């Protein structure tokens, strides 16, 4: 029971601090799941990150479901995901109650204020997967470089990043196993 509670608390914090969505949540997720609790090793964290990119849904939900299950089974999965979703929704309801008049203009201004913060978080989110890729050797580094090129030059991959990841996963089976 106490495990489920600490899972819920950890993911409520992830939910509340998840500004900017998606990848900018990674530093907070990494802190909660790797540094602070030790629920995941760095290798596992990178696996969850990789998995979240080839499965539907935001990384925070994917991480909550994964770690919840790993720590406390289906019940852990359920309550981790619930806490992750409920905490920011409570914040949203408070904001809606206060800003019922003109939330649009205020939220636009707030989004501009968030921009440099999100840029900083995104930069930090690159550290873990990039470090792992460098550690994985010359083939992984080559894949990274090819990936950069494809993401910049090829319209199909630019518009469908998951397609790139599936191709790279298959390439990884042959080159990196």
């Amino acid at each position, binding site marked *: 029971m106490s495990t489920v509670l600490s899972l819920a608390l950890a993911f409520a914090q992830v939910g509340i601090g998840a500004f900017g969505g998606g990848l900018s949540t990674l530093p*907070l997720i990494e802190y909660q799941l790797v540094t602070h609790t030790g629920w995941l090793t760095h290798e596992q964290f990178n696996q969850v990150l990789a998995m979240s990119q080839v499965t539907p849904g935001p990384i925070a939900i994917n991480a909550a479901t994964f770690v919840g299950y790993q720590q406390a089974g289906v019940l852990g999965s359920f309550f981790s995901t619930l806490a992750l979703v409920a905490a920011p929704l409570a914040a949203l309801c408070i904001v809606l109650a206060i800003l019922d008049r003109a939330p649009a203009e205020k939220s636009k201004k707030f989004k501009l204020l968030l921009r440099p913060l999100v840029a900083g978080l995104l930069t930090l989110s690159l550290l873990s997967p990039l470090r792992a890729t460098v550690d994985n050797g010359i083939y992984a580094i080559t894949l*990274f470089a090819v990936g950069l090129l494809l993401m910049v030059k090829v319209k199909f991959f630019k518009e469908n990043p998951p397609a790139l990841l599936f191709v790279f996963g298959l390439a990884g089976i042959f080159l990196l196993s």
Partner: protein
Amino acid sequence: MGIFEIFLFFCRISAVTFGGGIVMLGMVQLEAEKRGDIPADELADMVSLAASMPGPMAVSISWLFGRRYHGVAGAVAGVLGAITPPFLTVLILTPIILKYSDVPQVRGFFHGVLAGTSAIITVVVVKNVKTALSAGWWNVVPFALVIAMIGVFKIHPLITILVVIALQFLRERAVSR
């Protein structure tokens, strides 16, 4: 739109949206514009608010969207629709990943995906950092502060995020005076 229809609407979008975040917002906006029963400017306001709130954007947009049609019941239906596909997918995959994570081919697959993820994040980082830093000299301060506090001084990311948001508000007030 009926309550069950709201659930299905978000189920469908969420099931085919990988990575979550901004992509999900774009998909919802696109699909909703096709239906045409919410005015475009109201839709844009919902998207803007969802993007500036904490928590996965898929969750906040489905809450706002469902609420627009059917109050709290619609909001809950929207959120459930958005989280069911990722929740079930990862719930099924997690035991498999935990069991086979040491198989070389599985590791190879993840290392390949991770190399691709690093490339994608790099592209996202470059784009975001450029936009954020070109919007004014001050933006360098929160940007650098986030990286220093989390990356160098290992301060809790949630505390860092709240401190930087507070700083941004103070600065905004000082400038507009």
